[in-house]
């Protein structure tokens, strides 16, 4: 794909801010960085649709709003559905009345994407609406108080998957959102991480260049829900990549590319020890779970290497 507007350095990121300061997202939250970069990378007229969740409640408490672009919130599970209607309406109004069609950007949390909104997302992808769907994944229902979602990683403690004496946190694996998107035949899907802003910006530019649905899966640290130091969010995010917990890769018209090839991964314990949600994994009785998680991480990395055609 030859795309114009890709950047090599953080200095090339435009200065214009379309998310006004004064919003109520937590200190150390990764969402504002995602939104700011998205609104910078996606040029021209745009509309943002947001599912119910942290981003919605923290940026639009009436009578205030942080949004300098048209912004629509309807319900929790229907962001992709609402966006479908907006996109279809502008497609026809452009033909009938010459109204300029804006780019439609959707932000959904992991609950609104992996769980309750998965059907609406699937429908929108299958119908081929021209939209960028971005999941900001903080790996649990943070807005309602840290409940387990289909995106919560194995081993993590949440308020509905507590680290108990019998069941030590969540025992199930996280769904493969990018894989789900690719299975729908999308042309572009990728993972993103706030510790890699240039990579993230370029992926947003690529997604915006495509006419049709694209899916971006963004890792967003949640100091509140992860019981972590807000000052260490970026460090945690970087460790997620460097331990191979959160591989940065992209899928483009049939080709997989690993964007940060982590040759010598750091021990996953370095990532876990900065977060209270994984604290119990260091107890001797939970060693089996820690080992299982390590095997999962390695398996996933090998899978991606195979998909990207890389021999180690």
């Amino acid at each position: 794909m030859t795309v114009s507007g890709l950047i090599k350095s953080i200095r090339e990121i435009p200065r214009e801010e379309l998310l006004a300061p004064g919003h109520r997202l937590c200190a150390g939250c990764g969402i504002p960085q995602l939104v700011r970069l998205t609104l910078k990378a996606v040029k021209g007229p745009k509309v943002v649709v947001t599912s119910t969740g942290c981003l919605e409640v923290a940026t639009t408490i009436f009578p205030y709003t942080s949004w300098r672009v048209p912004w629509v919130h309807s319900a929790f599970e229907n962001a992709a559905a609402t966006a479908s209607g907006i996109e279809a309406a502008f497609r026809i109004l452009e033909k009938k009345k010459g109204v300029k069609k804006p780019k439609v950007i959707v932000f959904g949390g992991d609950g609104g994407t992996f769980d309750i909104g998965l059907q609406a997302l699937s429908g929108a992808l299958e119908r081929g609406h021209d939209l960028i769907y971005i999941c900001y994944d903080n790996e649990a229902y943070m807005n309602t108080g840290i409940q387990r979602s289909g995106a919560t990683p194995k081993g993590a403690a949440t308020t509905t998957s507590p680290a108990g004496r019998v069941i030590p946190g969540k025992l199930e694996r996280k769904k493969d959102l990018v894989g789900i998107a690719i299975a729908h035949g999308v042309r572009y899907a990728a993972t993103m991480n706030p510790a890699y802003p240039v990579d993230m910006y370029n992926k947003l530019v690529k997604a915006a260049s495509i006419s049709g649905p694209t899916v971006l899966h963004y890792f967003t640290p949640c100091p509140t829900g992860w019981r972590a130091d807000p000052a260490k969010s970026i460090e945690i995010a970087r460790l997620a990549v460097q331990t191979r917990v959160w591989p940065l890769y992209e899928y483009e018209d049939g080709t997989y590319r690993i964007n940060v090839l982590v040759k010598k991964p750091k021990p996953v314990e370095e990532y876990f020890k900065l977060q209270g949600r994984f604290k119990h994994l260091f107890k001797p009785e939970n060693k089996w779970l820690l080992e299982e998680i390590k095997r999962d991480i390695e398996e996933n990395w090998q899978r991606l290497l195979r998909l990207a055609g890389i021999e180690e």
Partner: protein
Amino acid sequence: MRGKLTGMNGNTAVAYAVKQAEVDVIAAYPITPQTIIVERLSEYVNNGELNAAFIPVESEHTALSACVGASLAGARVFTATASQGLALMYEILWIASALRTTVVMALANRALSAPINIHCSHDDAYAARDTGWIELFAENVQEAYDLTLQAFRISEDKRVLLPTIVNLDGFILTHSLEGLYVLDDKDVKEFLPPKEPVLPIDPDNPITYGPLDLYDYYIEHKRQQAEAMKNSYGPIKEIHRKYSEFTGRKYAPLKTFGMEDAEVAMMILGSSAGTARYVARKLRKNGKKVGVISLTVYRPFPVDEIREALKGVKAVAVMDRSYSFGSPGAQLYMDVAAALYNEKERPLLFNVIYGLGGRDLKPEHVAWVFEKAEEVARTGEVREPQIWIGVRE
């Protein structure tokens, strides 16, 4: 009578009206007995007879969600559903009205599960009664056509800006072939000019739609919405009148028969109103002072007109094609009772449950109900406040 005489079933007539309304976006999901509407509309779009985006959604929840988005974007929008589909949309019904969209929906009235049934009850129509939608009831195929056209004009009127449901009885109207007059396309254009969106999504004028609204503002916004619904009544009547003048077919929120001197009356919604009037006409020929009130406009509830129409009436049978479990009466009954309670002179009321799941309401049933009403009027006593009719017990 303006228009050309032709034959259509209720669904085809609705689809034809929607095509003539030149909608921009249709988002709908198949469900019996509404499916013919979306099939016809898909054909119109795919054959180039209607320049619209048809969104073949994966559920009714998405159908209405997409309609909300499309309406906010400035499009003229239509959807259709029934029963379970309406139930799945329920959450978004409230959002569609509170965001002041102008979505028009045809609701092919069907009983709600369980047990599963595909035939007519008004469960779905009543399920929407508190959600902030204007609700109209068609009595026949002609009305299904006419009310669909009027619904767009009502919803999009700048004094209204609320979504509208057009109810038509499942199978009884949706699938019955009847004669009707359809307008020429140019006449429809004259009656229904293109939608002029109010504050649509516009990147040059960014607006935040659907923000978080807590205890410091929510109640004021709800009050504004309540006022909007109340204020829609005048424009609805005006649009009915204009359409009546335009087509020669009379429309008003209330249809009354024999009410000028009626001592007992029946109140009813939907296709059974015709049966009720047929029986009332016969009884009146025999000197019985009976009357029928059917509602074309169910929401906003025509309180004043109902009070006026029931002046001097001694007993009223309020007919409900649904049931409200654990309530003091079914849905229309409670509305009518509440509308009359503070009147100094008011009739005695009793509630009749009929026709659930498509069971026929026969003329002899209606005649029997009128007899009951006469008994109530004569004795001044309601011995049976609620009667189920046509049930094997």
